[in-house]
């Protein structure tokens, strides 16, 4: 299990490798991650990866294109609608909803 923490809500939950971050936020509204398209286009669910980037799946071309629009780098910012937990050893992933 991987401990996933969301900021600024401070909500934490244990999740399994393979789980999509958006499935976690859907099941746990207290995580307070906004969303809209769920399809790597709008960037509403952008989160800053504060720790555990290695435990997230690699971004595909669609996600990279969206991150580029916002001037983000994929090792620091991800889309919750695209990122999944991998089985890379990482005790914790912390994601912070982007301010801008």
């Amino acid at each position, binding site marked *: 299990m991987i401990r996933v923490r969301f900021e600024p809500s401070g909500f934490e939950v244990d999740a399994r490798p393979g789980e999509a971050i958006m499935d976690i*936020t*859907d099941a746990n*509204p*207290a*995580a*307070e*991650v*906004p*969303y*809209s*398209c*769920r*399809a790597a*286009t*709008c*960037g*509403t669910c952008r989160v800053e990866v504060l720790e555990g980037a290695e435990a997230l799946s690699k971004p595909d071309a669609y996600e990279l*294109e*969206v991150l580029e*629009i*916002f*001037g983000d780098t994929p090792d620091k910012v991800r889309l919750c609608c695209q990122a999944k937990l991998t089985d890379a050893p990482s005790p914790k992933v912390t994601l912070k909803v*982007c*301010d*801008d």
Partner: protein
Amino acid sequence: MSPTAQPEEIVEYDPIYDPFNPELIADPYPFYARLRDEHPVYYNERMGFYVLSRYDDIFAALRKPQIFSSAQGLTPIKDEISQLGIPPTFIMMDPPDHTRLRRLITKAFTPDTVKQLEPTIRRFVVEHVEAMKQKSADGEEVDLIAGIASPLPTMVVANILGVPPEDRPKFDPWSDAITSASADFALDVQQAIGAVQGLVEYFGGMCRARRANPTDDMITKLTQAEVEGETLSDWDILGFCFVMIAGGNDTTTNLIGNSMKWLHEYPDQHRELLQDPALIPNAIEELLRIESVVQGLSRTTTRDVEYYGTAIPAGSKVHNLYASGNRDPRHWGATADELDIHREVDRHLSFAQGPHFCIGAHVARMMIRIYFEEMGARVGERFEIDWNNATRRHSAFTRGFTKIPIRIRA
């Protein structure tokens, strides 16, 4: 009326694509097919704008705000922002300004907030469906638009903004006037300006009231929000209200009306949907695809671009025909013009694409899902719609109905 408005003047519409051509407004799809096949990039000389009609071109343009900017407005009309006199809205901005302002209202669209809305929406839909049934049983005429399709999104938008129920009926005339630009744009602008003034007056008062007595609604949150250390002015907040009303109100109304028309054309699929409500979410995506409520919106080029050998200079308005892209057989295959509720609908254009993707898309999806669920459970196949007396909305940029007479059997 504006001194420039001369309704008796005969306008020579561009025969290939002119958003104000009444023939195109009546049935745009043959025009779109010709555009895609013969003029994938087209220049409308009368109004001075370019048109993109193929799925791939529109998809790519919408995802490149650095080249296709929203800052000069969203219609092909030059100077639309100054003509309408609207407050600054984040939908007419580009990243990063757009991102900062859009972020302020995303809190209204988190899973938690949306989940909290569901019981309110369901209660409202049940009450309105039952009221339509009762009226029909009493022998009264029932209009599906006035009975549920229009009041439903009005209630939801008002609920999010914090508008009290008694003031909600004011919304519809405003949103109608703002979004119904038709053949006589100068006249429509006059009506839209009146609507904007009404909106400004009402929400200006609400901003003052919420600053004095905060609640937990969106307007209170906006009065308390800061962007780069500065609070928003009432005028800034009015921009948000404008987006919510113009974007969230009659769009869902039109989606319900269009969906009923398509399901009427494909009764077997309607029956299937009634028998298996699990099909509803995918059917909604297909209904969104087949008849895009917003037919298209424009961007302005920030640099020279080229399509199919045609140069589009920097500073040009480019109109992206979402409804055409959604029917492009190059992307959707030979059945693009047919409804198929089992189709795998990946990334239609009806909510746009890119950073301007409709912020309330999931709320709209939830509204129409609950509408189908409750209509299916409470009415099923026991209704007839008098399509001969249904009235289409006469609009250059949106597609839907203003009246759909329905009779519900007991």
